[in-house]
């Protein structure tokens, strides 16, 4: 067992606390009319994966897919339940975000590498390759904010793909950059997937899930509808979408 989720639930809290500020919060708390609403984005999800599994997570918008991925990556702690993850996780979530617009491309590359847990020696060694893969050789000393959004995602992808993780998490990333880069990135992705890592893939393309995944988790409004063999669940999901 490399990934195991036991009754994982995540609760978001909705309210106006961010707008009212601390003074108003204290006053309302004292008066007893401070109220928040709860919202379970992920509700009682359990599944487990073996080494080499390729899991596709499907579901309509707002099903809780991204929140669940954040739990597996360790970014979020589940409100209830347990998430056991063994090994290094490489998560490719929203690739172009989280960079610093004022720093140069080179500085951002090193900073991102450091955040992903690489060492400086490793980055020195790989830097040329990263830039070459992202096709940003001429932009190395430009401020990051001058890049197009496609270029930003390309850089994010190139840095994140370097490692040989035990678990790879992909959130709609097989749609990065222009057609040529997409082909290149998908090739790279398949290379990593085929090396035997455990992969979790969120995709709205059912065709892609059918083609790649051996297991599927279907979520709807945070609840687990089904988990199991890819083919059977994909067929059921297709039926479900037709009825809607």
């Amino acid at each position, binding site marked *: 067992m490399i990934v195991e989720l036991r009754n994982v639930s995540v609760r978001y809290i909705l309210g106006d606390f961010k707008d009212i500020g601390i003074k108003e919060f204290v006053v309302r708390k004292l008066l007893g009319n401070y109220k928040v609403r709860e919202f379970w984005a992920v509700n009682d999800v359990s599944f487990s994966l073996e080494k080499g599994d390729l899991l596709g997570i499907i579901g309509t918008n707002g099903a809780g897919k991204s929140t669940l991925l954040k739990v597996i990556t360790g970014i979020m702690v589940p409100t209830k339940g347990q998430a056991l993850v063994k090994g290094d996780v490489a*998560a490719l979530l929203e690739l172009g975000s989280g960079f610093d617009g004022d720093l140069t491309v080179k500085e951002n590359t090193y900073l991102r590498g450091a955040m992903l847990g690489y060492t400086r020696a490793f980055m020195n060694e790989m830097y040329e390759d990263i830039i070459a893969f992202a096709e940003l050789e001429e932009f190395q000393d430009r401020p990051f904010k001058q890049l197009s959004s496609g270029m930003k995602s390309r850089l994010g992808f190139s840095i994140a793909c370097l490692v040989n993780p035990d678990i790879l998490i992909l959130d709609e990333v097989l749609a990065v950059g222009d057609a040529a880069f997409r082909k290149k990135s998908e090739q790279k992705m398949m290379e990593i997937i085929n090396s035997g890592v455990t992969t979790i893939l969120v995709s709205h393309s059912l065709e892609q899930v059918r083609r790649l995944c051996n297991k599927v988790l279907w979520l709807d409004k945070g609840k687990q509808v089904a988990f199991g063999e890819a083919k059977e669940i994909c067929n059921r999901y297709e039926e479900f979408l037709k009825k809607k």
Partner: protein
Amino acid sequence: MLEGFKKHIEKLKKRRFLFEELVKRDFKKKYKRTVLGVAWSMLAPLLTLLVMAVVFTQFFGRSTPHYIIYMFAGNLVFFYYREATGGGMRALVDNAGIFSKINVPKYMFLFSKNVSALINFLLTMVIFLTFVAIDGIAFSFKFFMLVYPVVCLLVFNIGLGLILSALYLFFKDTQYLYDLFTLMVMYLSAIFYPIDSFPNYLQQLFYINPVFVYITYFRTIVIHNTVPSLSYHLLCAFYALLVLLIGSYIYKKYNYKFLYYV
């Protein structure tokens, strides 16, 4: 056992790399790669000092020995405190875009902010010591004891940063309230006035303010060439550790919770 030790070393190496890159980023962003940028951060306390000297020497200058140094010590410590805690407060909010996408230890952002503030402080301290020399105060080995309040301040600032950064994630008006608070701390830290003229029991009350305690340590060493008592050292450490303890508790309890609030 050896394997585990190796892994630990590897992890520390990675953390150090992240730490260095974050400090570099904070510096570059703050000074925008300009020469005046670094100079400015040292000039700001000097200009404040100049204004204070012009205004207050008239009132307190005659009764206080080495009045310029007295004020400079106050400004030096207070500016450091204000910069480190103010930056610490914003450390999590400013980087929320990063750690809601990547799994990084959040306290790193706070630590790096504190280290860049510390470097700034040490640069200003060089100017301070130059002023001390110009004012005709002889340097002595006791000056090395100044490391002690600096370490206490660092711990104190990190602790307060842990508290404030968590609060600021939930409440946006923390910033304004804290600005108000630091203003009060400034007036209560006896930066530009001596406290001798207050009645004894009021003088004691000043020691409730940790910033005043650290400023006084500086003044005792530099102006009076005296090492404070052991109990005074304990008081310094007590404030630093108390705030760090509360800060760590709050950080541990709330640092991942704000992701639930949308």
